[in-house]
C-alpha cells in the first residue's frame, strides 16, 4: 500500500501557479527523491503533503488519510525536517526534543526514552543540556534532524537538508538517511536540487521543473532512458557527411555538433549557438565502450585528427538536461 498518494496537486499563490498538477505515489520503506532546481515547486509540494497549507486543487493521502479531511491522523505518522534550523536557540537540545516530542503526543517514560535514543543517534548525549545557540552549525543541523525524528515517524520529509551544510555534516545526513531507512524501515521523501545526493540515497526519483512532474522512475530507468552515455570529441572540422557517417555506426545513436547553451533568465531567454573551428561533436551512444572503438576506427580511416575526447556516463544531470534542455544547477 502506498504511504503517500498525491493526486493532481495544484497550488496557486494569486496568479502564480507554483505546482501544476503533480501526481505520484510513494511505497512504504522507499527513499523517494523529489529533484528539481530552486523554484521548481518541491517545497510547495512537501508543504501540501505535510498539511502546512491546503492545495488549490487535488488530494494528498498519507497512510490512507486525506491530509485535508483527517489532518491529525495523517500528520501523526509524519516527521518534517525543514531546510531552516527550526529550533529554539535559547533552549537546550534536550528541551527542544522534549518539546517536539510532546507536540506529537509523547509523554512520561516514552518521551524520555525517545529523547535519549535520538540524542544517541545524533551523538549529542554529552551536550544535550547546553543551549543550542552555543552549538556549532553541524551540531545544530543534527538537532534539527533529531527534532523531526523524536516521535519515531514512519514517514520522514527531508526538505533540502544539506543546503548550506559543511561536507562533514552532509555525510552525516546521508548516513542517517540510509540508516533510518535500512534499520527502522522509515519511508523518506527527500527533496534536493543536488542530483548526486538523490542518486546516492533514493530508490525512485520524481523530477520536477516549473511546477510540473517531468519524470518519475528509478534512477536506473531514468538514466537508461538516455542510452549508453555520451562521447564528446574535439575535431579540426566536422561536416554533415561526417556526422551522418558517425550516426550510422552500430553503437552510436546520434552524432551532432555540440551546441553551447547559455541559460539566461526567462525574460531574456536566448540561445547562442557557436559552431567554430575546432569543433566539438557530441556522440550519443548505445554503449559507450563499443562506440568509442568504432568512432576512433572511423576517424583514423578518414584521416581525422582527434583533438580531445571526453567520455560522459549518463546520470540524473544528463537526464534533467535531456528533459528540460537546461542544467540542474543554474
Amino acid at each position, binding site marked *: 500500500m502506498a504511504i503517500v498518494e498525491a493526486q493532481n496537486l495544484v497550488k496557486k499563490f494569486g496568479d502564480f501557479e507554483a505546482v501544476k498538477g503533480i501526481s505520484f505515489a510513494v511505497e512504504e520503506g522507499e527513499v523517494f527523491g523529489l529533484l528539481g532546481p530552486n523554484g521548481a515547486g518541491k517545497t510547495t509540494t512537501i508543504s501540501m503533503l505535510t498539511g*502546512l497549507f491546503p492545495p488549490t486543487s487535488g488530494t494528498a493521502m498519507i497512510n490512507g488519510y486525506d491530509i485535508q479531511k483527517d489532518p491529525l491522523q495523517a500528520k501523526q505518522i509524519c516527521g518534517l525536517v525543514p531546510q531552516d534550523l527550526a*529550533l*529554539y536557540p535559547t533552549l537546550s537540545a534536550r528541551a527542544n526534543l522534549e518539546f517536539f516530542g510532546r507536540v506529537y503526543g509523547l509523554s512520561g517514560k516514552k518521551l524520555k526514552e525517545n529523547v535519549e535514543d535520538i540524542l544517541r543517534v545524533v551523538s549529542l548525549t554529552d551536550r544535550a543540556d547546553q543551549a543550542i545557540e552555543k552549538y556549532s552549525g553541524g551540531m545544530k543541523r543534527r538537532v534539527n534532524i533529531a527534532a523531526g525524528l523524536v516521535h519515531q515517524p514512519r514517514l520522514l520529509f527531508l526538505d533540502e537538508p544539506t543546503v548550506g551544510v559543511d561536507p562533514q555534516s552532509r555525510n552525516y545526513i546521508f548516513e542517517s538517511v540510509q540508516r533510518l531507512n535500512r534499520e527502522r524501515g522509515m519511508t523518506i521523501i527527500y527533496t534536493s536540487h543536488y542530483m548526486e545526493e538523490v542518486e546516492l540515497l533514493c530508490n525512485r526519483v520524481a523530477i520536477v521543473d516549473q511546477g510540473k512532474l517531468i519524470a518519475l522512475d528509478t534512477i536506473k530507468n531514468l538514466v537508461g532512458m538516455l542510452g549508453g552515455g555520451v562521447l564528446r570529441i574535439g575535431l579540426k572540422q566536422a561536416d554533415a557527411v561526417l556526422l551522418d557517417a558517425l550516426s550510422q555506426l552500430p553503437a552510436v545513436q546520434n552524432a551532432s555538433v555540440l551546441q553551447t547553451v547559455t541559460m539566461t533568465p526567462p525574460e531574456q531567454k536566448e540561445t547562442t549557438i557557436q559552431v567554430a573551428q575546432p569543433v566539438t561533436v557530441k556522440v550519443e551512444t548505445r554503449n559507450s565502450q563499443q562506440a568509442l572503438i568504432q568512432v576512433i576506427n572511423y576517424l583514423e580511416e578518414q584521416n581525422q585528427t582527434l583533438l580531445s575526447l571526453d567520455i560522459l556516463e549518463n546520470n540524473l544531470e544528463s537526464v534533467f538536461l535531456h528533459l528540460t534542455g537546461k542544467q540542474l544547477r543554474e
Partner: protein
Amino acid sequence: MKILSIVWKDIRIFFKEPGYLIYLVVLPLVFIQLFTTLFSASVGSATSSEKIRLVVVNQDPDGALAQEFVRKLEEIGTLEVLPTTLDEAEADYKDTRITRYLTIPADFTKKIEAGQPAEVTFKALDSLSLTIQSMKMIIEGVGNSLQLERNILDSLTQFSEMQSSAPAELQIYDVDVLTRQAQSQFKASDERPLVAVKLEYPQAVTVAPEDDFSMVQFSVPGFTVLFAFLVAQASARSIYDEKKTGSFRRLLAAPLSKLQLLSGKLLPNLFIVLFQILIIFVTSIILLPLTGVGRLSLGEHPGALLAISFCVALCSTSLGILIAAIARTEAQIGGVSALFLWLMGFLGGTMVPLDIMNSPMLTGISRFIPHSYAVNAYKDVLIRGADLNAVLPSLGILIGFSLIFFLIGLWRFDFN
C-alpha cells in the same frame, strides 16, 4: 497537554531573555519610581502611605444617614475623618492651616429619606491635585453606596409591605421581579446620584503643604496597565520569531489543530502579564517604600484586583494576536507597537491621569481605548475602595475589547 507544552516552552524562552524581563518588569518599576518622585515634587507634597486627614463638618449630627455617611468614609480605610465645627473649619481654612474640608448639610438625612438629592460641599485649595481628585472620588463612592443601599432597602420594604397586604393571587413579587428592581436601582444610583459632591476652590492660591495621597496609588495602576499591554508586542514578536526560524512551520506539520497552536502561543502572554502585574504590585508594596516614594495599598478587595488583572491580561493577549496578524515584519511589529501601544497608553490615561488633563476631547477618545477602563477599574479599587461588583462594567468592556481584538486577529491571521 499539547497546548500546555507550547505554553511551557514559550514561558521558558521568555525567562531566558533578559531583555524581555527588563522591558516588561523592571522598566515599569523604574517608571513608577520616576513618575511618583517627579509628580510628588510637582504638586509640592510629601508622599505617604498613612491615612489622609479629612476635616468633616457634620451639620446634621443627629441624622442617621449623615452619621452613616461619616462612618462609611472612615471605613474606606484611606481617610482619617476629623470632626469639627463649621466656624473652626472656616477659620483654619482661611489661615491655610487646613487645605480642605467637607461639609455635610443640616438637611442631609431628611432629603435622602425623602428621595431628594443632597449635596455635600468639599472645599479645597488645590482642586487639581491628584489627592483632591481622588478624595472627591472616594466621597462620591461613599455617597453612591449609601444611596444604593438606601434605594434597595426602600424597595424591599415597599415590596414586603405590598406583598403582606395583598391577597394570595396578587403575590407577584417573586425573585425575578426583585432582581430586576435591584438592577434598576443600581442603574439609577449610577445615573442620578442622590448625594452630589460639590467641589469648591479659590481661583488662585498658594497651597500649604499637607499630608497627601501616596502617588504610588496613581502611578502603579497606570504603569501596570501600560506595560501589561506592551506584553502584546512580545507576544506578536514570539509568533514572528517562530515564523522566521521555521519552527512555526514545524508546528503546523505536527498533529495540532490551528486552535491548539494559536492558544498555545497566546496563553503564555496571559501568564506573563499576570506574573508581571504580581511583581509590580509586590514590589510596590515591599520595595518602593524603601526608596521613599510611598507604599501601595491594595485596599479591601484584592479579589477585584485579581479579576481586573485577569481581564487586562486577556485584553493584552488578544491585542497580541491582532498585532501578529496585521504586522508581518519585525519592523512592522515594532512600528505598530510603538504607535498603538504607547499612544493608546497615553490616551488611556496610563501615564498622566485623564482627570488632571481635564480635556473633554481626550476623555471622549479614552472611551474607545481599553487602557482607560483598566486604569479606572484599578483606581476604583485601590483609591475608592470599590469592590468587584462596582468594577464589573469596566471588566465587561475589557472582555468586549478582548473579543473584538481576538476575532479580528483570528480573521486576519496568516498561518502560512
